Every structure is written in C-alpha cells, then in structure tokens.
C-alpha cells in the first residue's frame, strides 16, 4: 500500500472539526509558513515539490504561482476551483466533505505564499451540503485565529469566502469561473491576458484545483524535496483517483503516482478487477474528456512497456496510442459495454454544457451528438463516421476554451480505436439496436 498524504486521517471520527483535525497535525503548515518562512520560500518549496495541477491540465503549480504578476498596491487573489463537474471525477467532493480543514489550511498557506488577502473557494452549485460543511469549518478557523485579521500575530490578514456556482460545467474553466464569481454569465474569456496578469476583477489571480491546494500543507510540512521523492520522474507525489464503472471496488483511491495501471485495476489493494468476472474492454483514464483506450493499450504502451499511472506514461504515444491522466476520473468498461452508446452519452453531455459563445463548439457539439444519436439508434450511414471524425477535428484547437477539445477528443479516440464497432452499428442496425446487444467482434464484419 502506498503512502497516503492527503487522506491519511479521512476516516477519523470528527475530523471535520478543528479540534480533532489539529490533534492529527492540522494547521501545522500555517504556523510553519507564517512564522518561519517568507512567502517566496513557500513558493520555492512548492516548485521543488514538482506538484502538478490536479484539475486536469497537469501544469506545474509552483511555476503557475511564480507567473503571478505582483504590481505594487494592487490586490491579488487566490481562487480555489471546486467546480468539479467532469463526468467520472468525484475526488474533490469527497475531500472537501470529509476533510474541509485540509482545504482551508491549504488555502491559508497558499494565500500567504501568493500575498493574497482575500481568497475564494468557488464550489459547484450542486454541492450545497459541502458548502455548508466548508462554511462551518471556515467559521471554526476564524474562531481559532487562523483566518481574519493578524493571523497568529504575524500581521498577515486573510478573508476566505465560499461561493456556489449555478452548476454549469463550463464554470470549471478558470476564466469562466472568474466571470461567474464576478456575478456575470459564465463565458470563458479570451486569452491573453491570462488570469495571472488580469483575473478576478481584472487583478492578478491564481486559480488552483482543490487537490492541488490540499497538497500544499503536506509540501510545506515535509518539504518540497521530500514530496518530490514520491512518484516517477516529473509525476511527483500522490494523486486521488476516482475509479468508477465496471469494477469490483469502485471508489476514491489515493495512489503514489507510478502505480502500474494493471495493478490499479486488478490488485485487491485498489479496484479488485472487473466485476462479474468479465473481461476489460476499454478505459477512460482521466475523466470523460480524455481519449478512450482499449484494453491492450491501457495496460501496455504501444512499445510494450507496462503503462503507469503517471502524467508521462499515460500520454505515451500521443493521442494515437495514448491518453492523459487528466483529473483522475478513471472509468473502466467491461466487454459488454457499447462504445457507440458511451460516446453518444459523452457527446450529449458536452452538447448540453457548451456555453454557446464560439461557433465551432456551439454548433459542432450539437452536430456530433446528433450524428452519434442516429448511429446508436440504427439510422447511421457509412459516411457518418468520416463526418464525425472531421467535425471533431474542426472543433479541436479552434475554440476559446478547452471545452471544444474535451468534446472532440472522446469522439476522435472512439473512432480511432473502435471504428469496427461503429461500422457494425451502421451495417447491422437491427442487431445493434436490440436491447442488451453486445458487439460480437470484428469477425462479423468480414
């Protein structure tokens, strides 16, 4: 069993109260950072740790922090992105509802490092119960002197607010989140300028994922070098993986980056294999927007190396034979899963969630969904597969924000790896639309 840095005490009775949390070493990082370190030293530790953004893009957190513009006399903001909405990803919800003080501790330490005196947690609107948990915890932190004016007698002030969104997926995109936080319609902004220069209220802003911020106390307590020892290569530390789908033991696992995918799926320590004794068909490794991979390619890279749960290993082979670690939403599908239906389902989500601001995504996501709907319901034509691939290509890279790519990648990848199954749907519509139909394999197409 790997080390648990974030979730070690997650099941302790009463850990959501400040007394129990402090008994288990809570808020040590705040004291250490504020009393013994300068803000730049904290940033330096985070840089040394090699921590990479846990929200999906995997951008080094320390580097992001060092890009923050620091003009004199202008306030800066830290915003925590708790708008976790990616299908398949449910790690932040659990972390916040069980360990609210871990996030708050991370927010205080990070805000101190960035010199922010006001910070926000933007939480998804559906998670109202988590919002209440966080607000209770924040009130406790104020009462204990960790928030408010003159924290621990150091002269450093910090106010922390939780703000619920309206439940739109697009508000998880950082600039749409900032728009929404400002009280506007959640449309992503054009970049540049980036939030590090002009973010919330046109002030320099850092937006970080919940899990990234929760890792900061660990890094400050143990030191960046110690954190960097865990993991493989540039993928350091631990990562929460929310495993779901056809697994014997779905759930949230904190893994040391570098665990082989095969071990993660089949070992009893983690997911315990595929349910009902069935065979694995495909895996979406990092939330619904990353490319789907068939069993052969998720367990081993194209070169035959075992694939590891790291940023580099999962993206080995680019999008031709690889995928991404993404946000850690690990969706496993057994041999009876219909890939066409699954792709249609993902597409339906992105069609529904596109903000409608820029034309390729607004029109393209609807087009993709309609074609996939037709194929799945037995009205596909041979031409449709090529049209799908080409529409996905027309969206990809030409939109304001990454939602366009998120909508295009699953479709492109499904066609790349499971084209024969699409063809079976089109050529044998009666069989394919029968309830409980299972694709019998390439042999039927011959």
């Amino acid at each position, binding site marked *: 069993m790997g080390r648990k840095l974030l979730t070690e005490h997650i099941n302790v009775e009463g850990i959501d109260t400040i007394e129990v949390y402090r008994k288990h070493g809570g808020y040590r990082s705040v004291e250490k950072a504020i009393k013994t370190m300068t803000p730049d030293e904290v940033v330096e530790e985070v840089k040394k740790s090699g921590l990479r953004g846990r929200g999906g893009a995997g951008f080094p957190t320390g580097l992001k922090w060092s890009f923050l513009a620091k003009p004199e006399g202008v306030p800066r903001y830290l915003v925590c992105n708790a708008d976790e909405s990616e299908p398949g990803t449910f790690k932040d919800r659990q972390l916040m509802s069980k360990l609210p003080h871990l996030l708050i501790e991370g927010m205080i330490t990070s805000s101190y490092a960035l010199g922010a005196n006001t910070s926000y947690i933007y939480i998804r609107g559906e998670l109202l119960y988590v919002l209440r948990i966080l607000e209770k915890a924040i009130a406790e932190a104020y009462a204990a002197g960790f928030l408010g004016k003159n924290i621990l007698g150091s002269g450093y002030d910090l106010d922390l607010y939780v703000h619920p969104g309206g439940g739109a997926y697009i508000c998880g995109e950082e600039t749409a989140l900032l728009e929404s936080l400002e009280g506007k319609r959640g449309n992503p902004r054009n970049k540049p300028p980036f939030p590090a220069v002009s973010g919330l209220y046109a002030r320099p802003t850092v937006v970080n994922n919940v899990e990234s911020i929760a890792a900061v106390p660990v890094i400050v307590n143990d030191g960046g070098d110690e954190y960097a020892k865990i993991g493989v290569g540039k993928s350091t530390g631990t990562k929460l993986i929310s495993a779901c789908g056809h697994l014997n033991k779905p759930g949230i696992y904190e893994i040391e980056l570098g665990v082989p995918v095969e071990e993660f799926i089949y070992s009893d320590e983690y997911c315990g294999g595929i349910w009902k004794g069935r065979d694995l068909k495909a895996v979406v490794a990092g939330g619904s927007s990353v490319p789907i991979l068939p069993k052969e390619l998720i367990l081993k890279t194209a070169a035959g190396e075992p694939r590891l749960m790291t940023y580099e290993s999962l993206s080995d082979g680019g999008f031709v034979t690889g995928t991404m670690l993404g946000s850690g939403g690990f969706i496993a599908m057994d041999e009876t899963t219909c890939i066409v239906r699954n792709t249609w389902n993902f597409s339906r989500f992105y069609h529904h969630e596109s903000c*409608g601001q820029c034309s390729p995504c607004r*029109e393209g996501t609807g087009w993709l969904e309609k074609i996939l709907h037709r194929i799945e319901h037995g009205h596909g034509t041979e031409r449709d597969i090529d049209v799908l691939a080409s529409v996905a290509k027309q969206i990809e*890279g*030409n939109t304001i924000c990454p939602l366009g790519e998120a909508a295009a990648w699953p479709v492109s990848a499904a066609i790349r790896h499971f084209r024969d199954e699409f063809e079976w749907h089109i050529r044998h519509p009666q069989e394919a639309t029968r309830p409980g139909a299972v694709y019998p394999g390439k042999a039927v197409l011959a």
Partner: protein
Amino acid sequence: MAKITFDGIEVEVPDGTTILNAARTIGGSIVPPAMCYYTPLKGSGGKCRACLVRVAAGSAKDPRPMPKLVASCVTPVQDGMVVENTTSQQVLDVRKGIVEMLLINHPLDCPVCDQAGECDLQNFAFEHGVSTTRYEEERRTFDKIDIGPLIQLHMTRCILCYRCVYTADQLTEQRVHGVLGRGDAAEIGTYIENIIDNEFSGNVIDVCPVGALTDKTFRFKQRVWFTKPVNAHRQCENPKCCGKVVLWYKGKDVMRVTARKDQYGEVKEWICNTCRFDKKETADWTIEGPAHIDRSSVISANHYELPVLNAQVIADLPESSVRDLEQNPPMRLGN
C-alpha cells in the same frame, strides 16, 4: 512600436494593437474576415473564430510558433511576430470549417432576407466556404420574438456574435436584451418579452452581421442592391447623435436610413432613432453626394459609382507563398 510580418508583408504598428488591426493597416485581400469583432464596441471579438490565423513566430524574443491558431481580433501583436493568414493552407482549411459550422443551423433564407447583399455571413461563406453541406440533421429554429415596433428579431438567423449586446451595454442606459440559454440553444432575447425602447436601439440593426435584427420600416420593401446610397446629414437635436447618415434611395423615395459604415462594415459614429426611423423625406436632409460602398459584396457590384477594385497589395510575397496562392487562390469577388 512593434514590427510584425503578416503574410510576408512587414508592417509597424503601436504596441497593443491586435493582429487584425495590424492587417487592416495593410488592407486588401489579406485582411482576415471578422464576424463578431467590432472596433467601436469594447469587449467584442474572439467568438466567431472566422479570423483565426497562424502565428509562425511568437515574437523576436521567443520565436516559437504558437501551438494553436489564434483569433487575430483579440490577440495583441508582439515585436517580431510572424503571422500567416492567406499563406497558410491550415488557416484556409479551418476557415472553411468555421463557415460550415456557422451555416449548419442558419436557415439560408437569403432570397427572402433583408440583409442579403450586405450580409457578413453571406460574404464570408461566399469567399471562404464550400457550396455543399454535409449536415443532414434537423436545423435549430426559434420562435420569433416581438421586441417592439421598430426592430424585428429573427433569432433563427443569429450567429451569436454578441455585438448587439455590447451595443446596448455601451450605448444605452439600460440593456433589456441579452443572451439566454446555453450552447446551440442560446438565444438573444429580452427576458420575459419586453420592448427594446430607447433612442439608440436602432443601432443594433447596423451592427448585426446577419439578418437577425432588421429594420421593420424597411422589411420586404426593396433588395438593398437596387437602392442607391447617398451621404447626407442634418442638425440632430440629440447631442449623442452625429446626424451623419446614408440615405438609401429607390427612385425619389428614401427607403431607409442607416449610419455610415467603413469598408469593414463598422459604424464609426452612431445615429439616433429619430434620424433612422422618422426622417424619411429628402427635405429633412442636406445631401452630400453618392456614398462610396467599399465592400466585396453584391451591394458594391451593382453600383452607380465606378466598380471598386480590390487593391492588389501582395506583390512582395515570398516565391513559395505566391506559388501556394496560385494553386489555391482565395476566392474574392472582383478579382
């Protein structure tokens, strides 16, 4: 000042200028098309993606190419930037894709649409699109919304450029219309049917790139290319109104009044509703002379002024680019 190379042409522009505006200082057929960007409207641009260009070198300091195509209307230039528009096959291909996306839910009712002949989408599709469609699904339609006696909102034609929203924000005291809904169900509307009623509301007709917002006093009266544009002005009582307009004549009748637009279809000075809707007699105006319409559309093709030729400014292109252009000539009316 920043020096950039646009399609092989060097140009020097002030820092902070966008790539599109730098290209406009060169002018001619290398200027990227823009469907949502509107210079007088702060915050506009970046949405339609028609103006995507390839940045082959980011700046003199960091000459790496940008990983994705960028929207030239919102991306500021950097010194030493190298931009490819008509010289990049990738850009031309992507632009074809954008035309296709914009048209899949557009009704293509140009034969009965008042905007036809001066429609940005029509020009854009004509110059950059393909003449067939691969779209077999049902098109999205909307019910017509009544927004008052002067302006017709026909949402089905809308391409969601947001220009009318910015116009109402920046020109009028209170905006009563906006974008409702999300994705391809997003629509321009007034929340719980409301009349758009203020002295400058008529300007949304001028900024609309398509026929989604049209002049109710001109609807179905005349095809625009059969009318004769004439510059005129009057002393307007409204201090915010410039009083400088174009009168569109058919015979002796003023069919409609619009603000003056430049060659990119942009209104520089706004006019009030009194000038636009109420002053439709020649006696109301001081006539200046024929209006010069410098746009690559049918409206300038049937003009009583001399036909406007597109200036040929790409003489200094590198040989490879000239070859590419000859093999894949950008379609352009008048060439």
